[in-house]
C-alpha cells in the first residue's frame, strides 16, 4: 500500500478559525461534521416527539395530548426523523468519507456543498414553526395528516401546512444539491486507478442513493407545489369538484416515497459493506454482484410505488403488477443480506460495537423484509393496511435498516473522525440497551396490528392496553439509551485513547482503503496529490 503520508503541516495555509470556519466552510470534513451534529440534534427533537406519543398511548383514553396535537406530533416525528435525521446523517458520512475513500482532495463542488448544508437549519426552523403555528391565533388546525400529507385533509388544515410545504421544498433543494455534488465527486474526482469496481461499497451505495434523490425529490416538490396551489390559488389538482383527483397526489407522493425508503436504506447497506469485512477479516463476499443487486434495487424501487395504495380502488391488473414488482424486490435485498452472511462465514470475527450493530441489522432487517413481503401481497395487505402491523414493519425497516446502520458507521469511523477511540464497554452497553429496547417497543406492535389496532390514533380499545404499555415502556428505554449515545460521542470528541491511522485491524480488507492511509484525525486537506491505488 502506498504511503504518501500527508503531513499535518500541509494545512497551515488558510485553515480558517472561529465562526467563519463553519459558516463559510467549503471543507468536506467540516461540512460533514456539521451535517452529523445537525442530525444528532434533530434525532433528539424527533425522539422527544416520539416519547410524547408513547406517553399518550401508555394507557387507553386521552391523557396528555388532544387528538389534533397528537397527529401534529406524529407528522413532525416522521418528517424530522426522515428528512432531519437519517438523510443528513447519511449525507454527513458521505461528505466525510467519500473524498477520502476515492482519494480526492475535497468534494467536486465545495461551495454548493456549503449551500446544501446551510439550507438545512432554516428548513428545520420552518418545520418547527409548522408545528407551533397552529397554536397561535389564526393558525387554524394543526397538521393532522401524517407525513404523507394526503389531500383533501392537507388542503383544509391551517397555515402550519404552508410552512411544512416550504420545509419540504427547502429539504428537497438541500438534498438535490448534495446528491448532484456527490455524483460529480464520484464520477470526476476518483484518484487515478480507482476504477468503478474498486470503489468501496459505501461509495457505490451513495452513488445510487444520489441518483435516486435527483429522480424523486423533484417529483415530491412538484406534488407539494400543487398542494400549495390548491390551498391558495384556486387550482383543483387534487379536488374532485374541480375536475382533479386526490389519488393523483398519492401517486406523486409515493413515486417519491417508496424510492425514499431506499434512499434511507442504501447508505447503511454501504456502511455494512465496510463494517462486516473489517470485523470478519475477509473481503466482502461477491462484491460485484452486490453492486449489481444494489442497482437492481434502485431500478425496481422506482416502479413499485403504488403498493402503498392498494386500498384506493385500483384495477386488479394494476395491483397485480405492483404486487409482483414489490415481491421481486426481496431478491436483491435478500442477496445483500446473504452476501453479508457469507462474508462473516468462516471469518475471524470479533464483535466490536460496529460489528454488533451489523449482525443485529442483518437479523432485524430480515424481519422487516419478511413483513414487507406479507404487506406486498394484495389480499393480505387489505387486512393489514393502516394498522400497527405497518407501523411495526417500517420501524423494523428504518431503525435497523438505516438508523442502526448509521450508528454502526458512527462507531466505525468515530476514531477516524476524532482521533480518539470511544469506550468499547460503553459502546457495547449502548448496543444491547438500544437493540433490546427497540425490539421491546416494536415487536409487540405486530400483534396489536394483526389484532386490528389502527395507526395514527390517539386513543384505542382497551383490548390493546397490554401491548401498548409494553411498547411505551420499551420506547422510553429506547429513548433514554440515546443519552448514553450522546455521552459516548461527546466523551470521544473530547479525548480518550489515541486512535492510530488504522484503528481496526481488518479495516482495509478487500478495498483500496485510502481513508485508512490518512492520520486520525485526517488533516484539513486530505489528498493534495492523488494517491496511488494498489
Amino acid at each position: 500500500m502506498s504511503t504518501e503520508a500527508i503531513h499535518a503541516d500541509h494545512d497551515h495555509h488558510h485553515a480558517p478559525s472561529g465562526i467563519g470556519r463553519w459558516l463559510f466552510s467549503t471543507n468536506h470534513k467540516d461540512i460533514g461534521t456539521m451535517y452529523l451534529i445537525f442530525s444528532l440534534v434533530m434525532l433528539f427533537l424527533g425522539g422527544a416527539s416520539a416519547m410524547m406519543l408513547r406517553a399518550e398511548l401508555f394507557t387507553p383514553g386521552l391523557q396528555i395530548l388532544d387528538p389534533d396535537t397528537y397527529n401534529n406530533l406524529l407528522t413532525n416525528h416522521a418528517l424530522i426523523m426522515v428528512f432531519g435525521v437519517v438523510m443528513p446523517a447519511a449525507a454527513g458520512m458521505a461528505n466525510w468519507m467519500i473524498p477520502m475513500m476515492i482519494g480526492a482532495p475535497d468534494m467536486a463542488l465545495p461551495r454548493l456543498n456549503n449551500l446544501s448544508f446551510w439550507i438545512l437549519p432554516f428548513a428545520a426552523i420552518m418545520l418547527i414553526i409548522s408545528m407551533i403555528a397552529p397554536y397561535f391565533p389564526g393558525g387554524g388546525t394543526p397538521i393532522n395528516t401524517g407525513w404523507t400529507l394526503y389531500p383533501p385533509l392537507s388542503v383544509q388544515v391551517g397555515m402550519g401546512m404552508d410552512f411544512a410545504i416550504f420545509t419540504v421544498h427547502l429539504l428537497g433543494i438541500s438534498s438535490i444539491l448534495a446528491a448532484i455534488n456527490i455524483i460529480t465527486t464520484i464520477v470526476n474526482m476518483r484518484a487515478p486507478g480507482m476504477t468503478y469496481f474498486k470503489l468501496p461499497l459505501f461509495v457505490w451505495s451513495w452513488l445510487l442513493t444520489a441518483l435516486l434523490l435527483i429522480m424523486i425529490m423533484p417529483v415530491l416538490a412538484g406534488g407539494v407545489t400543487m398542494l400549495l396551489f390548491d390551498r391558495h390559488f384556486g387550482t383543483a389538482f387534487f379536488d374532485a369538484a374541480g375536475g382533479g383527483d386526490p389519488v393523483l397526489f398519492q401517486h406523486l407522493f409515493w413515486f417519491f416515497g417508496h424510492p425514499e425508503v431506499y434512499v434511507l436504506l442504501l447508505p447503511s447497506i454501504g456502511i455494512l459493506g465496510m463494517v462486516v469485512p473489517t470485523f470478519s477479516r475477509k473481503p466482502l463476499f461477491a462484491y460485484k454482484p452486490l453492486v449489481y443487486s444494489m442497482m437492481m434495487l434502485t431500478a425496481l424501487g422506482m416502479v413499485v410505488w403504488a403498493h402503498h395504495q392498494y386500498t384506493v380502488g385500483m384495477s386488479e391488473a394494476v395491483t397485480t403488477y405492483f404486487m409482483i414488482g414489490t415481491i421481486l424486490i426481496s431478491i436483491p435485498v435478500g442477496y445483500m443480506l446473504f452476501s453479508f452472511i457469507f462474508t462473516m462465514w468462516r471469518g475471524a470475527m470479533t464483535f466490536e460495537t460496529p460489528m454488533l450493530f451489523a449482525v443485529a441489522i442483518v437479523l432485524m432487517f430480515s424481519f422487516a423484509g419478511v413483513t414487507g413481503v406479507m404487506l406486498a401481497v394484495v389480499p393480505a395487505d387489505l387486512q393489514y393496511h393502516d394498522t400497527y402491523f405497518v407501523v411495526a414493519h417500517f420501524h423494523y425497516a428504518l431503525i435497523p435498516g438505516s438508523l442502526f446502520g448509521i450508528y454502526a458507521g458512527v462507531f466505525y469511523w468515530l476514531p477516524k473522525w476524532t482521533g480518539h477511540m470511544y469506550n468499547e464497554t460503553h459502546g457495547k452497553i449502548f448496543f444491547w440497551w438500544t437493540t433490546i429496547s427497540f425490539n421491546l417497543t416494536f415487536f409487540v406492535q405486530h400483534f396489536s396490528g394483526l389484532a386490528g389496532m389502527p395507526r395514527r390514533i390517539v386513543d384505542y380499545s382497551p383490548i390493546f392496553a397490554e401491548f401498548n404499555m409494553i411498547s411505551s415502556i420499551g420506547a422510553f428505554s429506547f429513548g433514554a439509551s440515546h443519552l448514553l449515545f450522546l455521552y459516548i460521542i461527546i466523551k470521544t470528541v473530547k479525548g480518550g485513547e489515541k486512535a492510530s491511522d488504522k484503528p481496526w485491524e481488518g479495516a482495509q480488507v478487500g478495498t483500496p482503503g485510502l481513508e485508512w492511509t490518512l492520520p486520525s484525525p485526517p488533516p484539513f486537506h486530505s489528498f493534495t496529490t492523488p494517491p496511488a491505488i494498489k
Partner: protein
Amino acid sequence: MSNQPKSNRKLGLGLASIVVGMFGFGFAMVPLYGLFCDITGINRAGGTGRVAVSDVTMLGVDHDRKVRVDFDSTLNAGLNWEVTPQTTTLEVHPGKVYDVSYRVRNNSDHAVVAQAIPSITPWQATEHFNKTECFCFEQQTLQPGESADLGLRFVLSRTLPEKYNTVTLSYTFMDTNRDKMIRNAVSAR
C-alpha cells in the same frame, strides 16, 4: 486534470437538468394520469352518457337473472343540500328499464346550481350500466328552501358479466359555483 473544474460544472449542470426534467414530469403526470386512466378504463367516473332505450333493450329482458342495485349519495364539501335516494336498493332484471328518484332540498339561503357526478362500484360494471334519463346529465338549480325529485331511468345491460351480483350507484353532488373548472369537468361528461 487541469480541466477538471470545467467537467465538474458540465456534469453538475447535466444532473441539474435531470432534476428540472423530473420536476416537469411531476406536472406532466396531471394530464397523463387522467389519460392513462381513460385508456385503461381504470377509475372511469361512471361517465356513461345518455343512451337510447332501444339500444339496450333489444336483447330482451333476462327474467332468470337478478342483480341487486344499491343507490347512494354523497355531498361534496361546501354544499348545503339534503339528498335522499327514494329507493335505496332494488332487485333488477338485466335488460329491463327501471325508474328511481332522488329527493333533494336546498337548505342554504341562496340559489345553488349543483351537478351530480356518478360513480359505479365495482368499476367493471360501469360500461354495462346504461342511463336513458338522468338528472346527472345536466346541472340542477334549486332556490333557497326548494326541494325536488330528481329522476333517473336506467337499464342494466345483459352484457354484465355473471360474477357481478351487486352494483352500487353513487352520486356525489357538487356546487358548480366553486370555479370555472367544474364547468369544464362537467361539460366533458
